[in-house]
């Protein structure tokens, strides 16, 4: 179909879809008039039941932990797929690539300061997921950025040394397995898969909320590994093209 014909087909259909969407959304409760009851119930009992002050994390890693397990494996599967797709035709042209040109010492110094700050911040966000905004997913991405800054400073080779692919693959898999094993722990110690089976502690303190902290750490490790693995694969492709790989150009 020609682009013009496709557009002629799309525009009336899109107008109809927009009309139906707006008609359907108009029938929802108005903005700000949330009817409940789940949110109100959780807001009422969440802190006393789970001793977690961040209820979004409590929902993700405890009340809806089974869904999050599925989500975690979506992340795991997609990462594996990216690695498989990008690794397929690599190998024939994988000569050692030198570091990128043009990185000054000032840039490297600033990057080093950023690495330390990002890793501390990432660890903090992972560990305090049950208390304040944050959790394994958010903290994991910040931790991954910590290693990525090494690349931004022009040290593509050094990034491989800081975060070798085998370590990343291991972190990705170990994080996913850790979450699943915590679920089995709930089955063994509390009789229900993914049940919170640890001492809940005092609300607001770092070692509160039982397994939520451990799940957060497991997910933090997985997300760090998964994102760095994805970035490493893309960077390998980019370096391949830049170093005059036979394909691509």
């Amino acid at each position, binding site marked *: 179909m020609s*682009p013009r014909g496709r557009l002629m087909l799309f525009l009336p259909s899109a107008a109809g879809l*927009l009309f139906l969407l707006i008609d359907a*959304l108009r029938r929802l409760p108005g903005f700000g008039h949330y009817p409940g009851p789940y949110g109100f119930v959780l807001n009422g009992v969440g802190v006393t039941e789970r001793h977690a002050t961040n209820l979004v994390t409590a929902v993700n890693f405890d009340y809806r932990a089974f869904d999050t397990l599925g*989500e975690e494996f979506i992340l795991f599967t997609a990462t594996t797929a990216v690695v498989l*797709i990008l690794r397929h035709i690599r190998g024939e042209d994988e000569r050692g690539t030198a570091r990128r040109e043009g990185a000054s010492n000032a840039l490297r110094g600033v990057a080093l300061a950023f690495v330390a700050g990002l890793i501390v911040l990432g660890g903090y966000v992972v560990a305090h997921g049950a208390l304040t905004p944050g959790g394994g997913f958010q903290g994991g991405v910040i931790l991954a950025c910590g290693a990525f800054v090494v690349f931004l400073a022009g040290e593509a080779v050094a990034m491989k040394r800081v975060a070798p692919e085998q370590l990343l693959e291991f972190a990705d898999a170990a994080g996913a397995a850790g979450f699943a094993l915590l679920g089995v722990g709930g089955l063994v110690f509390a009789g229900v898969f993914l049940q919170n089976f640890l001492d809940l502690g005092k609300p607001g303190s770092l070692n509160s909320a039982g397994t939520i902290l451990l799940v957060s750490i497991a997910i933090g490790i997985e997300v760090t590994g998964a994102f760095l693995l994805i970035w490493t694969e893309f960077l390998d492709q980019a370096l391949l093209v830049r170093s005059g790989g036979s394909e691509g150009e």
Partner: protein
Amino acid sequence: MSFLPYAVAAWLFVVGLYGIVTSRHLVHLAVCLTVVQSSTYLILLSSGYVRHGSAPIYADIPPVATAVDPVVQALTLTDIVVESTITALLLALAVQAMKRFGSVDPTALRQLRG
């Protein structure tokens, strides 16, 4: 005024679809898909909003304070994670399409070659 967030969500959905239909570049197509998906964030978050409610984080607000629905916020987090991984997957496919067919124009990829 109370319908505005939903209207924006519907608009984002249709505009993203327009981008996908008319796209001439696979990377552009992946970005358009994220636009479509961002409308779902908006619908989720606005359907759980309580007037004058604060964030459902009881670290520094009184336990009886009105807060918005934490369930839809957790769902939005799930949504974002899935979106970012799917985008990575689509971009990886775009890289391979470039290598294999020498083009990232979806209309040029019509014939399948072995």
